[in-house]
């Protein structure tokens, strides 16, 4: 990894800040809980004393999941996955988002974020994204966003990115799991990438710059393992499309995909 000491320091600061914020918020929540609890506290009682059964229930949880691990067309591939560790409220998440198409690495992101449960269906996340792809200048972004489920069970991620040079970007991802049968799902997916400015080297333009859509048919062999086939379509639009045309590149591509989804 080509990371300067300076970026390393930023990562550490951001993560420490996020964790501290989280811990403080959690403490506040606990105090609030106890404050509102109408049962009176008695002398010498320890709230949450381990009663055997209770201890097992409160251990931190570590989860590794690969949402996409796939071949895209003849010369492409994608890996999207994350590892999370934490308790019911606070988690640290490491994420990888890698895409390769037409012989080029289009996306190669490493994320390190703090995630906090804020409602029944939603998590707040804040952290850091590091881009590694060779074709562009590596960039470091602060990421702040929300991930969760909308009414009607639409899974959604909305993340705002800020770079030190003032660049901004916004990504909106949505996915829906339509059960065709107990073990067969059709999963449509949409990703929109917006930018605050033009960036000819990166091939992005201000406003809506890039759209990815996909449709995958999953077969659940095991609740944790589902191979799939599908199609993936992506196109650049607006200013980004103009840049692409100037370079003589195609503005869209449609490829078949084959892969699997797995978690532990």
């Amino acid at each position, binding site marked *: 990894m080509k990371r300067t000491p300076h970026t390393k320091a930023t990562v550490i600061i951001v993560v420490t800040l996020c964790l501290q914020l989280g811990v403080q918020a959690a403490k506040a*929540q*606990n105090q*609030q*809980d*106890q404050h*509102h*609890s*109408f*049962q*009176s*506290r*008695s002398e010498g*009682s320890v*709230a*949450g*004393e*381990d*009663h*055997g*059964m*209770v*201890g*097992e*229930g*409160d251990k931190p*949880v570590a*989860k590794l999941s690969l949402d996409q691990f796939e071949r895209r067309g003849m010369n492409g591939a994608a890996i999207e996955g994350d590892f999370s560790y934490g308790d*019911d*409220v606070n988690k640290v998440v490491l994420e990888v988002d890698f895409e390769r198409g037409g012989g080029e690495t289009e996306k190669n992101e490493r994320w390190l974020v703090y995630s906090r*449960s*804020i*409602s*029944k*269906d939603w998590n707040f996340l804040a952290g850091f994204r590091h881009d590694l792809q060779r074709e562009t200048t590596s960039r470091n972004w602060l990421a702040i966003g929300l991930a969760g*489920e909308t*009414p*009607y*069970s639409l899974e959604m991620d909305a993340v705002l990115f800020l770079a030190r040079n003032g660049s901004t970007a916004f990504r909106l991802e949505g996915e829906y799991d*339509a*059960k*065709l*049968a*107990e073990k067969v799902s059709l999963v449509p997916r949409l990703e929109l990438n917006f930018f605050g400015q033009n960036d000819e080297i990166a091939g992005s333009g201000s406003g809506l710059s890039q759209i990815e859509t996909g449709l995958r048919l999953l077969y659940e062999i095991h*609740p944790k393992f589902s191979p799939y086939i599908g199609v993936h379509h992506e196109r650049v639009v607006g200013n980004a499309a103009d840049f692409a045309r100037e370079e003589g590149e195609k503005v869209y591509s449609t490829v078949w995909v084959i892969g699997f989804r797995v*978690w532990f």
Partner: protein
Amino acid sequence: MTKPPRCGSVSRRTFVTGIGAGMALLGLPGFPNPARARVPPPTTLTGENFSLQVDQRAVNLTGQPRNAISVNGSIPGPILHWREGQTVTLNVLNQLDKNTSIHWYGIRVPNPMNGVPGLNFSGIRPGENFRYRFKVKQSGTYWYHSHSGFQRQQGLYGAIVIDPAGGDPVTYDRDYVVLLSDWSDESPQQIYSNLKKDGHYYNRRRHRTTTDLWRDVRAKGIEQTWRERHPWNFAGMSDRDVSDVTGYTYSYLINGQTPEDNWTALFAPGEIVRLRFINASAMTIFDLRIPDLDMTVVSADGQNIQPVRVDEFRLGTGETYDVVVKPSGDRAYTLFAQAIDRGGYARGTLTPAQNLSAEVPPMDPIPILDKRDMGFIRAGGARAADRQPTAEEQNAKLAPAGLGSNSPIVHQPTEKGHGVALRARAPQNGVDDPGVGLREHQQRHNRRILTYKDLRSLTPSLDRRQPQRELQLHLTGNPARYLWSIDGVKYKNATPILLAYGERLRITLVNDTLLTQPMHLHGLWSELETGDGEYLPRKHTVMVQPGAKISYLVNADNRGRWALHCQMLYRTYGIFREVRVV
């Protein structure tokens, strides 16, 4: 079925379940087919001194060799046969490499004998021998289990049968323990971890598929289908979420035997058989029936009740019912216990001859939750009473003993955030409701289904005092994240509920979830308010139905640190409160 007390006439009665494998070979009843038995059946221990060894043992219930926890080598552990008035001494030796404990479920014991680690008891360390000693002040059917970690899921449970000091008001010729449990080849830690990562992991049939949708649209039209589906889909919930750990991982056992093993009980023609049903499972609610055989329920949670004739009853986790039957001598009968989610069943046979068995009926359709079970709004929506009760409400006159709560339902300010998915808008009193999936049986099959309203104590209520105050507790949770709590506060962050010694109060439980929650109170009776204050049935476990409320009276007549918790093993850590009688 009641008759005048019959003193000490044990001779005619044969207490049979599990006397030893040797007896099975002699053709005595109450055993699985010995050729197929994969777990040693429990023996029966009597007397005043008991030695119990908790140890690991290899089992093979599904074709997969696994490790389980046994008591004296068997799963379930031995049946402990006591007599009311006796002082029993139980030496429990821990041969495991981790702490263990035994909790005497439903038995009123002095607080340090209750066996709940952390509550005036420190658990039994590896290699340690702990001596429990207490006077038996009650009679009936009870059970015991480990209150440490997830050991109950691994087999540490067994039955307790206590003969009354006087005569038994129930007439019977034979006596069988029918202990129901759930077994998984996955470790309990694995099950819990799967739930934490995906709360719906084991409910593989929760989704309505496109095929279902198409069928509904054709049958009901688009508008009606939309009207039915909308509230569920909008909230991202399923109307099939009746169970969170299911037959997807569980095999259901009767006295440790799988449906294929077919635990078998013998009777002679003309005999009256008493069946002592115990739900010792970790996570399963059973619906029980014996096709073609009338059942008369004579006791609930060990306490005699006025006999009720039923065709089917729901047995919540931790509950016990004693049932008497009079089978006709020319055929066999199937004991059929379907899991509430219909993902599997436990099965046994009641037969006049060892080689005779009866047909196993098909399982009923998956129960579908309806508006009554929902009785819910989404968190954050319009609210009935989301605030502290006013002084006026708190001082309002309580409804008379027996009728249950008439107080307003108040959602505490803590009932919000990521751990609370729902709040009941207008919870109904659950005593007269057979429950989800069983209402249809009443209508469709004309079966007589037991409801809590049918339970009336055989003897008048001992304490006629009115409740002096009322405590309203809401059972809350977010099943997707697998978070559980009372009033939105999980046990870890909660303070004990204080009861003054001698006081009589009403506890009202409101279920703000879609799952039926069996709630167990240690050390004190839960006198269920089923409508008649004169004959309150005394229970130790009360099922709170989804979107419903239920009330019981409690006499704080046993000092110490007790527990009030959900008996569902993987929800216990959150839905748990210490109840301290001082």
